[in-house]
């Protein structure tokens, strides 16, 4: 069963509309791209889209009540909601420094959640 997916390329301001025909994990055709970057983007975006998730977690005893966090590497797009749920349950103690690992394996992706900002003790 073939499936048609429409994408907007993010490679440059041109924003080409790309159409991908996919059958399961097989790409049957990619059309509408105008450069190699567009072709590669469409391929990744259809087969295994990933995103870096950035958010905040609660801090106990810090100057600010929350501190910014990010997944150290991009995670599968389908895991974003699970990732946010786990982030919501995390509370850390101040001080927090950029790069501190706050979770070793967020949403079972094998990717670390790290602090991306500093928060001093109050």
């Amino acid at each position: 069963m073939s499936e048609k997916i429409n994408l907007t390329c993010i490679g440059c301001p041109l924003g080409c509309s790309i159409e991908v025909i996919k059958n399961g994990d097989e790409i049957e055709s990619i059309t509408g791209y105008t450069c190699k970057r567009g072709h590669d983007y469409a391929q990744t975006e259809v087969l295994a889209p990933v995103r870096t998730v950035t958010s905040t977690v609660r801090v106990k005893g810090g100057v600010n009540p929350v501190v910014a966090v990010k997944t150290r590497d991009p995670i599968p797009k389908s895991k974003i909601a699970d990732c946010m749920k786990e982030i919501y349950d995390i509370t850390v103690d101040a001080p927090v420094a950029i790069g501190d690992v706050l979770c070793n394996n967020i949403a079972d992706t094998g990717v670390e959640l790290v602090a991306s900002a500093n928060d001093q003790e109050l």
Partner: protein
Amino acid sequence: MNNYSERDLIIIGGGPAGLAAAISAYDTFKAAGIETPSILVLERDKVLGGILNQCIHNGFGLHTFKEELTGPEYAGRFIDRLKERNIEYLLETMVMDITKDREVTAMNRKQGMFTIKAKAIVLAMGCRERSRGALNIPGYRPAGIYSAGTAQRLVNIEGFMPGREVVILGSGDIGLIMARRMTLEGAKVKVVAELMPYSGGLKRNIVQCLNDFDIPLKLSHTVVDIKGKERVESVTIAQVDDKLKPIPGTEEEYTCDTLLLSCGLIPENELSNGAGIGMNPVTNGPKVNESMETDVPGIFACGNVLHVHDLVDYVSEEAGNAGAHAAMYCLNGDKAAAGDIINVTTANGVRYTVPTVIRPDMMGDALTIRFRVGNVYKNCYVDVFFDDERIIHRKRPVVAPGEMESVVIKKEMLEGKKIKELNIRLDLNEG
């Protein structure tokens, strides 16, 4: 150094522009053999880093560090460099006034009000968001209307959600980023309305902040009514015609408790105006020459106070240039005042340039001229004319108002020529 009466260089603002200017000025002083450069950064917030502290999304630093950083991480790297150099800074210090003679009046809780004399000043005050008042949106005035940046601060720094059901007016990058951020935190973003027929935001943000979460973007739409007495209860949007006037009959009412505004940024130039600095009416920032120096000798400008940028990497680069030239000014004075002057002008689709004046004697080996276009153009050429002679003719598959463009002028191109005017324009006829 605790006596705040004199410094060689004062930098107003400790955001990305101020930090980069301070670091590069320090290195310039050091290279000239100055043991302890006399530089002071004045910052009104409690921390250095400016707006980057609340921009927790990633995508910063691709040009500068060849990796994707979040805002606080990008700022952190520059703050570390500032601290390694022991550059002096004052926090929670508000600059009240600057004069043509480079006297800076500032105040804070410790020192009270004080005036410092400087040999040179770098303006790095950044910009602020266009407010509801400036937009003239009709309707009631309930709680629940925020600028996108205010909402960003509330969520990312203060740690609370300003609302649960959201309509966003304006598709600038902060608005798009906040659409995703509010969604991830459990809010429902119902629609993003954009007055223009194109988005002012980066393509990447449209895809990753709106499309990823199925948030509709309505181009050529604006807010025509806000309802609710205590708190926003609904927002009505309507389609606009090609003169940007709402079309009767196209109204759609969205129930919501929050309206976010992401409708453009305005350089914050009250201090510049007080010093009588000449402004560019297109950018709302000072007019500057190749050294990022305003028309008041010894006062330099960089970052979003000069013109609004879309990438912080370019802010850092431009600010580094301003800082180095400000340090040179402290060391050498204004040597080139009597030299040749080339005016940089625009035509055909190019809205403005920074700088607007080039003194060939003062420029380095290469000078980056940054500019913005007024509309989306496909398959055009960027042309640079030296008086009547076309020097650069560069094909661009697409240019857009939301993405800053640049051309590089090499010193050797200017050598042996008497040029009065350098004109940057688009050629739309070919291709």
